[in-house]
């Protein structure tokens, strides 16, 4: 499987998984698609940086930045709080493997390894925050691209009359 195909396939799976997890957190029915889209975006950037450039740390930063950008744009477009898109979008970036490795190292009694893994968990969650904050400091007016949902609806009604 070529790299592009792998990226596309795994992003689709990330889309499914984030939409499903958003449903667990009781997201509004109409927003599930956009929640999944945020997850796909964050995984796409992370996987692209990790596999093509071999930079997982910067991949996490880029993924969370791109995902926050999308979340804030959707929040303007769909007129919903951006948290709804942001929480499911973060799931593919959470360093779960490192948490697991920390636990196994602890059970092995290898304290040095355990602290190393625990610090990498902190490093990667810091990377998520850095990416998020980079986009959050932008003013909200940046994201006002195109009409919102209610404006589109009003236009359609006006066209009918």
């Amino acid at each position, binding site marked *: 499987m070529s790299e592009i195909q792998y990226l596309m396939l795994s992003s689709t799976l990330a889309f*499914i998984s984030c939409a*499903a997890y958003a449903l667990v957190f009781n997201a509004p029915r109409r927003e599930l698609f956009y929640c999944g889209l945020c997850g796909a975006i964050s995984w796409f950037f992370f996987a692209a940086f990790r596999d093509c450039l071999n930079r997982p740390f910067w991949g996490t930063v880029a993924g969370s930045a791109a995902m926050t950008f999308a979340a804030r744009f959707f929040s303007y477009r769909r007129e919903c709080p951006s948290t709804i898109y942001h929480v499911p979008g973060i799931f593919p*970036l*959470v360093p779960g493997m490192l*948490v697991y490795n920390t636990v196994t190292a602890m059970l092995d009694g290898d304290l040095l390894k355990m602290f190393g893994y625990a610090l990498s968990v902190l490093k990667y*969650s810091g990377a998520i925050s850095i990416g*998020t904050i980079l986009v959050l400091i932008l003013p909200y007016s940046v994201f006002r691209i195109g009409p919102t949902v209610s404006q589109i609806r009003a236009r359609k009604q006006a066209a009918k009359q």
Partner: protein
Amino acid sequence: MNSDRLLKLALDAGEIMLANGAETPRVEDTMERILSIGGSMEISANAMNTLLVASIHSEQTGSHALSRAVRSRDYNFEKIAHVNSLSRALVSGKITLEQAEEEIEKIHHEPYFPLPLVALSYGVGSWAITLVFGGSNWDGAAAFFSGILIGLMFAGLARWKKPYFLSSFLGGILAGFCAMLFYRTFGVDVESNHYSLATIGCIMPLLPGVTMTNGIRDVLEGNFISGSAKMMEALLTAVSTACGMAIPLSIFHF
């Protein structure tokens, strides 16, 4: 405008948002928006991790303040979205104060998705994310199986009052046990498959990624109290998940 009723409405709205996973700046924003329809200049709304304070001051009625402790912590996006749009409708004058009070009461008792659907979608989510992380088909199946069980537990616990770390702790235990049970029952070769990936896929939503991010964000913005409290909460939740995972691991592996 009756400032007592306004304060109560603002606190009700803030409580719903804070208890269902909204970040503190958003809660403060919504509360201030609701208080501002009283026409008073001196209003303030403060939200911390577990505490809400709102005050209002005007020449005619004097000073009023109200505080409330918020204990329960869950994620329910639909309620956040509803309260948000409700406060906007109230400020723009589309609904009156009485209607808003009725709406808030309705939002409190809003239905969840049906339990089987929640459990199934938890299973589907775990299956997909295990494959995303590079698991084999057997890993995906194991994650689906244990994801359904965790989803049932998760949805069942969401309706009860519980310590905040309980669901992540139990989730960690269940994830490890169910995945191992699945591998043993179907005779899957543990060496060539990734038991770790099946476990991680299930516990992904229990790990406090968002709480950690919000905590660091709050600290950088200068909200040290809620920021450090959130980081502490994230740390404890992660540790309790890890402890939960350690129990089945120590039984089966060592």
